[in-house]
C-alpha cells in the first residue's frame, strides 16, 4: 500500500498546508455557525483567476460540489488532472477569465485547505475528526462571504455552481440578496430530497462500518477507512450517472475477458469502472470530510428557513437568475429546478430556466455539453451588459 500511504501524506498536506492561497481568521474573528457553535481560528483556501477591476464589479464566485475543490481551472495538486471546470472557466470560456475575476474557495468542512475535520484542532493539537462542528450550506456561504469581504468586493457579479455548489448559490441569493447581481444554480435543489438523504446515509454507514475508521480517529491510528469510503463513492457515483449512460458506456461488456469467471471478480466493465472510481476517490478525499459535507447537504432546506415558503426566501430579490437542469439527472431532477423557478416567478424575480436534453445524468453540469455553454454565454453576456461590464456578444446593440 505504498502508493496509498504516499497519497495519504499528500492529502494531509493539502488539508493542512494547501497549494492554494489561504486567508486565515484568528480566534478573535470566529465563524458563527448555524448550530450555535463558533469556529475559530479558521482558514479558507481559494484559487483566483483573471483580474479584479478597479470598482470591483467583475467578480464571479464559483461554488464547488460535494467532492469538488477550489482547483477549477488549474492542474489539481492532488490528482495531477485538469481543473474540474476547465470547460466553463478560462480565457474566452463562458466564465471568461479575460473579462472576469473568478474565485473558487474550498468549502468549509472539506479537506483541501479550508478548515475541516482533517484540520488541526488547536485545543488538542490533533485533527478535529468528529470534534469538528456540523456545518451547513449557510455556514459555507458565510465563510465565503468573509473571503469576499477580504477582497473588498461588495457585490459579486455572478455566483455559479452545480449540485451542492448550486445549493450554495441559492443560499447566497437568499442570505445576501444585495451582494448577488446574477446567479446560476445548476442541477440543484432548494432542499435535499428524502431519497438523496437516504443515499448519503448509505455512504456514511459504509465509512463508519470500516474498522479502519476508528470512530473518526483514523489519522492518529495511522489507517484510513479506504474500503468504506470507496463503497460510499461507488454507490454515490451510480447516482451521478444515468441508466442510459451506463448502458451506453458499458452495457453488459466483460472486462478483459470473453466469458464470466464464475467468481466475484470484476467480470463486467461496469464493476471494474466503479471499483476504479472508489479507489481513486480515497486517494484524494478525507473520509470525515465526506461525512460532514453529505450532512450539510442533508440539512439544506431553504424554504424551511423562510417560514416554509421558498418564494419568501427570494422576496424582493433583484438578482437575475438562470436555472439549468438536465433531463437524465435523477439525483436532482428537473422538478427540483422547476420548484425553484416557480418560487422565483412568485417572487417576481428575473429568471431564465433551461432543461438540457442529455443522457449524461447529474454529472452533465461538469461535462462537455454545448447547450450549457451557449446558455451560460447568453446569460453572462446579458448580465454583463446590464452591469456595464465588457460583453463579447451583442456588442452592437
Amino acid at each position: 500500500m505504498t502508493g496509498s500511504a504516499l497519497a495519504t501524506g499528500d492529502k494531509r498536506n493539502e488539508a493542512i498546508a494547501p497549494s492554494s492561497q489561504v486567508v486565515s481568521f484568528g480566534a478573535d474573528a470566529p465563524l458563527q455557525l448555524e448550530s450555535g457553535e463558533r469556529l475559530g481560528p479558521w482558514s479558507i483556501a481559494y484559487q483566483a483567476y483573471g483580474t479584479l477591476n478597479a470598482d470591483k464589479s467583475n467578480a464571479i464566485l464559483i461554488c464547488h460540489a460535494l467532492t469538488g475543490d477550489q482547483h477549477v481551472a488549474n492542474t489539481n495538486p492532488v490528482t495531477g488532472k485538469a481543473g474540474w471546470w476547465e470547460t466553463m472557466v478560462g480565457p474566452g470560456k463562458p466564465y471568461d477569465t479575460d473579462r472576469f475575476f473568478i474565485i473558487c474557495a474550498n468549502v468549509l468542512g472539506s479537506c483541501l485547505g479550508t478548515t475541516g475535520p482533517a484540520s488541526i484542532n488547536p485545543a488538542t493539537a490533533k485533527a478535529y475528526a468528529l470534534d469538528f462542528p456540523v456545518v451547513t450550506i449557510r455556514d459555507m456561504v458565510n465563510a465565503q462571504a468573509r473571503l469576499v469581504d477580504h477582497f473588498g468586493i461588495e457585490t459579486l457579479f455572478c455566483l455559479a455552481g452545480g449540485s451542492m455548489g448550486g445549493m450554495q448559490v441559492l443560499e447566497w441569493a437568499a442570505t445576501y440578496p444585495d451582494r448577488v447581481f446574477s446567479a446560476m444554480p445548476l442541477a440543484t435543489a432548494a432542499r435535499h430530497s428524502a431519497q438523496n438523504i437516504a443515499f448519503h446515509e448509505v455512504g456514511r454507514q459504509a465509512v463508519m462500518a470500516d474498522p479502519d475508521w476508528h470512530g473518526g480517529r483514523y489519522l492518529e491510528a495511522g489507517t484510513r477507512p479506504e474500503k468504506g469510503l470507496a463503497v460510499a463513492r461507488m454507490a454515490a457515483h451510480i447516482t451521478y450517472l444515468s441508466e442510459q449512460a451506463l448502458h451506453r458506456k458499458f452495457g453488459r461488456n466483460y472486462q478483459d475477458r470473453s466469458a464470466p469467471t464464475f467468481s466475484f471478480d470484476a467480470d463486467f466493465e461496469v464493476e471494474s469502472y466503479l471499483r476504479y472510481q472508489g479507489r481513486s476517490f480515497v486517494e484524494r478525499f478525507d473520509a470525515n470530510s465526506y461525512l460532514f459535507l453529505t450532512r450539510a447537504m442533508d440539512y439544506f432546506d431553504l424554504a424551511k428557513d423562510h417560514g416554509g415558503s421558498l418564494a419568501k426566501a427570494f422576496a424582493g430579490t433583484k438578482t437575475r437568475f438562470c436555472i439549468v437542469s438536465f433531463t437524465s439527472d435523477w439525483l436532482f431532477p428537473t422538478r427540483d429546478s422547476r420548484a425553484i423557478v416557480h418560487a422565483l416567478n412568485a417572487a417576481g424575480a428575473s429568471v431564465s430556466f433551461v432543461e438540457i436534453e442529455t443522457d449524461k445524468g447529474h454529472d452533465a453540469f461538469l461535462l462537455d455539453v454545448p447547450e450549457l455553454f451557449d446558455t451560460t454565454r447568453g446569460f453572462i453576456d446579458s448580465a454583463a451588459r446590464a452591469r456595464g461590464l465588457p460583453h463579447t456578444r451583442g456588442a452592437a446593440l
Partner: protein
Amino acid sequence: MTLADDAAAARVDLKSLASLVTPGSRVLDVGCGDGSLLRLLAEKRGVDARGIELSQSGVNECVAKGLSVIQGDADTDLVYYPDGSFDYVILSQTLQAMRQPRVVLEHLLRIGTRAIVSFPNFAFWKIRLQLLLRGRMPVTDKLSYSWYETPNIHFCTINDFIALCAEMGVTVETAFALDREGRPVDTLPRPLWNLLGEQAVFVLSRR
C-alpha cells in the same frame, strides 16, 4: 441592423403587437418562441420582458440572446405566477394549441392587468371554402399541418372568441383583424372581420 430589426422586418405582426404595449411596462410573453417579440419589446419599448416557451430549442435561443425566459407549459405553469404581476400578458398565435384555452385566458387576465391575444381565424373565407368545396380539413400556408399531426387542437373563429369573452365577462378594450402578413386591416368593417380577417388581435382586461 440589429437582430431585432431583422426579426421585425420578417414579422410585421410582432410590430403590431408591440405597438399595443406601453413603453417601460412589465410584459410576459406566453409561448415566446425564439424571443423575437420579447427582444423587440425590450429594445424598442424599454419593456421588462419575460417569457415562457415549451420547446427547449426556443428557450435556449432566448437565453442565449440574454432574455429572461423559462421552459414551461402554459397549460400547467401559469398557475405559479402571482396575481397582477405583469402589465401585459401576451399570447401570440398560441391559444389554439392550448389544452384548456379558457383556463389559460383566465390565468392571463389574473396575472396581467391586460391580456393581448392573437389567433388565426378559422372562419376566414379561404378556410371556409376549402371545407365547403373540397370537404377536407383546411390546410393553408399559415396553418400548414394536416389534421392528424397538428398541434392546433382548439381552433376558433373571431365570433367564437368574442362569444367566449362575453361569457367570461371580459372587457374587450381593443380588437382588430389582421391580413395574412399580420398588418391591421383598418378599412375592414367589424361585421366582415370573421369572413375576411385571416388573424385577429384582442386586448382584454377584467375592468
